[in-house]
């Protein structure tokens, strides 16, 4: 008990010193730091929109494989893209083109038929027409070609295709009309004129066919019977 007051006395002094040390100290204003966070150097500067998703990379791979004519590999990649992103109609359309190049016309057509009209650009519609021709679905092909020719009347190549399909489907008068228009635009096209001549033959207009076929042959040498 004798030592207790001394202990209390010393304790009081300590409390006093502590209170001044804690509350009485006015720290000096430190100099601003010159150290920049080094973590920034380790951070990749990549937002979510910068990231190339796997399906996108795979789609690019599928395209390149088709450019280098590795069609089976390309088609495999397109299938994987479409299994992940079935809504990606552009990939469907591209895949259909690759299927066509790979000789799988029926599959190409089936795939294109799963797309809507507004998802098909002109090249795709023309591809569909070609595929319909291969499937001998001539009315569907004619419908596409006619629609195209209405907006591109100067396209002789497609007009000639339309004429061909008319001919194969037995609509000779329509075929002849289209050939005539095409030949008026390209009178020196020998192959076109011969196709025209064949349709004339199928429609039993032999005299006209002979005239047209003669035009596609080289002229007979005029000097053969000429007296010297």
């Amino acid at each position: 008990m004798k030592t207790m007051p001394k202990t209390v006395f010393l304790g009081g002094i300590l409390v006093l010193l502590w209170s001044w040390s804690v509350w009485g100290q006015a720290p000096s204003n430190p100099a601003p730091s010159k150290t920049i966070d080094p973590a920034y150097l380790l951070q990749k500067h990549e937002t979510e929109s910068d990231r190339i998703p796997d399906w996108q990379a795979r789609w690019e791979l599928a395209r390149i494989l088709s450019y280098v004519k590795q069609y089976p590999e390309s088609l495999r990649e397109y299938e994987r893209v479409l299994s992940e992103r079935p809504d990606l109609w552009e990939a469907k359309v591209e895949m259909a083109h690759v299927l066509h190049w790979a000789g799988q016309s029926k599959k190409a057509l089936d795939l294109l038929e799963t797309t809507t009209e507004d998802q098909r650009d002109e090249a795709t519609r023309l591809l569909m027409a070609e595929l319909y021709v291969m499937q001998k679905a001539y009315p569907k092909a004619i419908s596409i070609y006619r629609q195209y020719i209405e907006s591109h009347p100067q396209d002789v190549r497609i007009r000639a295709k339309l004429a061909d399909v008319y001919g194969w489907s037995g609509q000779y008068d329509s075929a002849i009309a289209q050939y005539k228009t095409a030949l008026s635009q390209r009178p020196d096209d020998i192959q076109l004129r011969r196709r025209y001549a064949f349709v004339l033959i199928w429609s039993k207009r032999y005299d006209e066919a002979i005239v047209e076929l003669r035009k596609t042959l080289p002229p007979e040498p005029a000097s053969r019977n000429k007296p010297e």
Partner: protein
Amino acid sequence: MRIRNRQLLAFAMMLLCSGLASAYLYRLTHAPWMSYREGVNHFSEHRFTEAIAALDFAIGHGIRRSDAFMILADSYMAIQRFAEALDTYEALLRINAEHALALWKTAGLYEQFGRFEDAMQRTRHLLEILPDDPAVLLRMARLLKFTGQWDEAIGYYSRLCSGDSLRPHIASELAEIYAWKREDAKAIEWFRYALSADPTDAQTRIRLARILFWSGYPEQAVSEYIRALGDST
């Protein structure tokens, strides 16, 4: 003269009372400092809302310490109140225009807000203070890259690439600029450098594949795509 125990006890009690009284009076007379200290403590214990309240009070009542502003702004950052954080860093810069960390953080926020000119202005100022700081050089390079000032960006990236701060992703960023400029050979070189340091970086490998294709190397592009996608087509 002998001091009695009772006297000692009385002295001790007086000392104790004066200690407590001084502490109490200090609280009364130095309330801003008290708030500042509380704010620092709250911040260190990740109680950001409390830290903001305390530091706001301290600054509002005359505390002008840089770290008070910094901690207040950092607290705002921690709870994603970015506009207020920016205002606070700016307030600090009005007191000390050379405060490197405040310049750095405002530049970062301006970049985040898409105010690239402001971010660049802050970063240029910072480069006057820390001309060789690789992080500052990198931010400048990135800002220039993002704003389409590719040649100047290449200059900053090159300074980084010549030092020991070169990281694979920085090499990849430089390669990307060369790719955009259609300097394909340099782009391929830097992409390959980045991949030699980090072969697992699929994003860089896809970008390399793209540039290889554009440069007329489809077969190489195919093999890089396959590697990036991690499968064996």
